[in-house]
């Protein structure tokens, strides 16, 4: 349910707000021992009845495309380039998770989200003990992104 909501909102955001076509969506809910991260990843923790962690990870090419659209012609100095990428990664993740909240169990009531944290130097996250990992890959024009949810193995509501 949460994974589906995140994917649906991300797709909507890409297609309607960013004018970027989504080609395919692939969701893997089988046992994943390790999560492979793309170049730029943002992490948001969700508190409430079913605490979880959401990671949204972008190919550089897609992130650069989205940054260009996001900036809409605003100038970026060369030294600001990395900061802009981190910032876009965080802002898009924050927007997608925020928009998906109303589709969470109990319409997201009593659910809080942390500000996004950008992870730059990690290539993978290994699952620890019984954590449940679900991941979706969204292939779009200019590259792909992944949305992953890390949750407790016995959530009170279905993911």
């Amino acid at each position, binding site marked *: 349910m949460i994974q589906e909501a995140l994917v649906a909102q991300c797709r909507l955001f890409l297609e309607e*707000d960013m004018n970027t076509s989504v080609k395919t969506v692939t969701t893997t809910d089988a046992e994943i021992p390790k999560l492979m991260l793309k170049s730029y990843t943002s992490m948001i923790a969700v508190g409430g009845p079913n605490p979880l962690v959401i990671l949204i990870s972008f190919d550089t090419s897609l992130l650069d495309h989205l940054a260009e659209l996001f900036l*809409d012609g605003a100038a970026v100095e060369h030294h600001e380039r990395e*900061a*802009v990428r981190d910032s*876009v990664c*965080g*802002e898009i993740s924050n927007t997608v998770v*925020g*928009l998906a909240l109303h589709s969470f169990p109990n319409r997201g009531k009593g659910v809080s*989200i942390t500000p996004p944290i950008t992870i730059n130097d990690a290539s993978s996250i290994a699952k620890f003990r019984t954590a449940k990992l679900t991941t979706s890959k969204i292939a779009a024009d200019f590259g792909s992104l992944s949305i992953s949810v890390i949750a407790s193995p016995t959530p009170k509501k279905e993911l």
Partner: protein
Amino acid sequence: MLKILIVDDSLIIRKKIAKIVQDLGHSVLFNAQNAQEAIDAYQAEHADLVTMDITMPDMDGISAVKALMQIDANAKIIMVTALGQEEMVIRAIQAGAVGYLLKPITQAKLEQSIGELFSAYRCDTDEYLDD
């Protein structure tokens, strides 16, 4: 033309709002990346409008609203927020903010907010809109 103070720890949001502000024919008084910079800027020169991020390091947007309202009880502050921050928006409005902008921020949304906020002043006086 309004003088607008932009307060956000996100570089991309500061750039985005600044671009929209300029495209709408207004001017950016200052781009503050934290609450203290915003307070210092507002003390130096009062802005006609402030766009304020809610979640920022060190001092959050609600505390910043309270600080700006102490400097100027007539300060006009719009909160910039993502969904899921409704409780904080309510607290910010209780602290003196006059409205909010929901992300993703677009020119149409900011233009509408400015229009709603300053239409009363447009009828009574051109103090805020001296184009």
